C-alpha cells in the first residue's frame, strides 16, 4: 500500500474482492470507501463486480444451455492452450 494520503485506483481494484466479502476493516475500509465517494469510475467498477457476483451466484449448472456450455468449455480449452 502506498504512503500517499489517498488510495489509488489500482490499489482499490486489488482490494475489491476483499471489500465485497466484508473482509476489509478499520482504516483500510475507510480509505476504500473514501475513494468510492470521489472516484465515479471505481464506484461503477465495484457495482459491476457486485452485480456479477450476484448474478453468477444465482446460476446453477443445470441452468446453462448445453450448447452454450460446450461453447464455453471449448473457449476455455483454447484459452489454456493459447496461454501455454
Amino acid at each position, binding site marked *: 500500500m502506498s504512503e500517499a494520503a489517498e488510495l489509488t485506483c489500482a490499489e482499490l481494484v486489488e482490494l475489491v474482492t476483499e471489500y465485497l466479502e466484508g473482509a476489509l476493516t478499520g482504516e483500510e475500509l*475507510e480509505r476504500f*470507501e473514501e475513494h468510492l465517494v*470521489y472516484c465515479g469510475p471505481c464506484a461503477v467498477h465495484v457495482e459491476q463486480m457486485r452485480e456479477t457476483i450476484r448474478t453468477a451466484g444465482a446460476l446453477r449448472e443445470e441452468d446453462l444451455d448445453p450448447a452454450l456450455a460446450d461453447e464455453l468449455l471449448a473457449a476455455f480449452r483454447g484459452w489454456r492452450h493459447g496461454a501455454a
Partner: protein
Amino acid sequence: MNAFKFLLTDRVGPFSGFRWPVGEWVEAHDGRACGAGVHACAPADLPFWLLDELWEVELREPVARGRHKLVARGGRLVRRIEAWDGEAGEDFTVACIERVRGLAVRRPEAAGHLADLGNWAPHVRPAAVASLAARAAEAVEGRDGYDAERAAQADWLAGRLGLEPTA
C-alpha cells in the same frame, strides 16, 4: 453529541443502500444501516464524504473516531442542512480551483495540476474536485500540503454552511 452525515438523494446511505428515516433512532446492531456502526462527520471530516444531501445527526454515545469519520452505536437524522445544494457545490469547486491557482503562483510546478483540475472540474462531482485539489497540494508540498488543503476545504464548508463545531 451532534455531528453531520452526507447521504445520497432521498436520504440513502451510499454504501448500505439504507434509506434513513428522519427523527427515528437507527441502531448499528439492528443491521439496517451498517453493522460496524453509524458513521458521521465532524466538520473537519466533511470534505472526504461530499455527497448529495447533508444532514445534522444526533449520535448515541460512545462515539469513536475513525481516520476521517465518527462511529457511533446509533444515530438519528435531526435536520437537513439545506445550504448544501447545487450552488454551494459549484462555489466549493471554484474555491478549490482558486486555492490551487494560488499554489501554482507560489510553486510553478503546480501549473500542470491546475490545468488538470480546470479540465476535470466541469465534469465531476465536488468530492472529486476536493480530492484533485488535495492531491495537487500533496504533489507539490507533500503530506502537509494535502492536510492543509483538506483543512481549508473543511473551513470553507463550515463557514458557508454555518456549521458549529461538534463536541
